[in-house]
């Protein structure tokens, strides 16, 4: 159904462009965008690969960081009090505001982009995993206590497996946020002259008024976001089905 609506929307869009004779530098039609992509697919695909590399590196880092911090927070109330305010502060600080500083501080451009995207992406993993660890059924915790379970046994055999659905929901959100973080960081880096990823190609096309090429890059970003969200949703579904079925 979404595909049918998409095709209808594209036809209406192209028809409106033809009827109104709108120039491509104001709003290109779908045909102009596809043509622009095939005219420059080598550069655009390389840029997409670069953006995805940053995205997946950031997602990996965000997952490790989010889970480790959630475990630290679950370990004691003191640790929670120490970590939570800083995690929230980092989450509410606009990445656009701190990306230039990170790019200056982290001398290696790729690493700087990964750090920016990780900051954007780690919070859902942290908050969801922490919520999952805190939501362990009390009866099961009592059962573990009655049977003399150690803290490590309770963590490994109960709290972590019970938190899995929460973690996977956080991971799904983090996947798309990592892409957003990577693109924002690339914009900031691109503005400073560092050529990397689709965001830089969008900036470049904008400066040259190559609007169809700009849209082609945007479409690639959109597809990448949908693919990441869908893939992580499928991964989550398979993991839970394998676990519970």
């Amino acid at each position: 159904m979404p595909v049918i609506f998409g095709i209808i929307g594209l036809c209406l869009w192209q028809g409106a462009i033809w009827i109104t004779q709108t120039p491509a530098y104001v709003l290109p039609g779908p045909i102009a965008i596809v043509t622009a992509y095939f005219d420059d697919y080598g550069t655009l695909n390389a840029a997409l690969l670069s953006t995805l590399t940053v995205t997946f590196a950031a997602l990996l880092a965000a997952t490790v960081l989010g889970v480790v911090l959630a475990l630290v927070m679950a370990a004691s109330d003191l640790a929670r009090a120490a970590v939570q305010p800083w995690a929230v502060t980092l989450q509410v600080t606009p990445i656009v505001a701190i990306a230039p500083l990170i790019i200056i501080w982290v001398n290696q451009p790729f690493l700087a982009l990964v750090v920016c995207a990780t900051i954007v992406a780690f919070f859902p993993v942290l908050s969801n995993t922490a919520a999952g660890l805190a939501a362990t059924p009390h009866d099961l915790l009592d059962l573990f206590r009655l049977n003399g379970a150690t803290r490590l046994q309770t963590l490994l055999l109960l709290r972590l497996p019970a938190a899995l659905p929460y973690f996977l929901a956080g991971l799904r959100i983090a996947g798309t946020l990592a892409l957003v973080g990577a693109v924002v960081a690339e914009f900031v880096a691109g503005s400073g002259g560092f050529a990397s990823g689709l965001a830089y190609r969008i900036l470049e096309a904008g400066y040259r008024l190559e609007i169809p090429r700009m849209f082609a890059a945007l479409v690639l970003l959109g597809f990448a976001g949908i693919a990441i969200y869908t893939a992580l949703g499928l991964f989550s579904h398979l993991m839970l089905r394998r676990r519970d079925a």
Partner: protein
Amino acid sequence: MIDLSGVSKRFPNGTLALENINGHIGQGDFIALLGPSGCGKSTLLRLIAGLEQPSKGHIIWQDGSPRPGEIGFVFQDSTLMPWLSAADNVFLPLKLRGKNKAATKSQVITALDQVGLKDFAGSKPAALSGGMKMRVSIARALVTAPKVLLMDEPFAALDEFTRHKLQEDLRRLWRAEQKSIIFVTHSIYEAAFLATRVLVMSARPGRIAADIACSIGESEDRRIAPDYIALVKQLSDLLRAESLA
């Protein structure tokens, strides 16, 4: 086996849940704790299990404080781990005590056999009915051969047919094992059918309003035995008097 001496429980919010509970639970007793919702039945069970401490009074185990696994606890919900098979759920208390899975396989199968689920050892909880899940939960409580089995309204969420079946099975199990059982319920019929003694509790703060010995013959069809009907009437009158007091 267990002596309760002046046991009271006041929660941190000031609520007095239990007041001056005295009594003795002997080896092989099947005791039903009967009372209206909120009278402290579950709290008393948790105090006996050691999951909470009394504010006043003492709970004395004549053979010394129970070690891990010496108390079997069955909760209102089956509280199975959805990611483990029935056999692995039953094995859990043994695993927490460092037992080897292969070495205790026969113990696990025996426990499942006691509740009639030997053929479902490999099934995950998602594939079991509510009644079957509760049977697995009972097998999990039995697998460590506990001194006492504490059951907190285990059949309350089940349909009438399943409840009757499980009541009969539990009674058969008790007759075979002669284990001490403390069974919390708010059903007069359930208490009268199952127990050798019914402790009727008053509304909050919970006190023991009556300690009634049941004398329904084992050879009779208990649900239509005159003694059973007389006991149900006696318990109904007591509860009515307590609710009006």
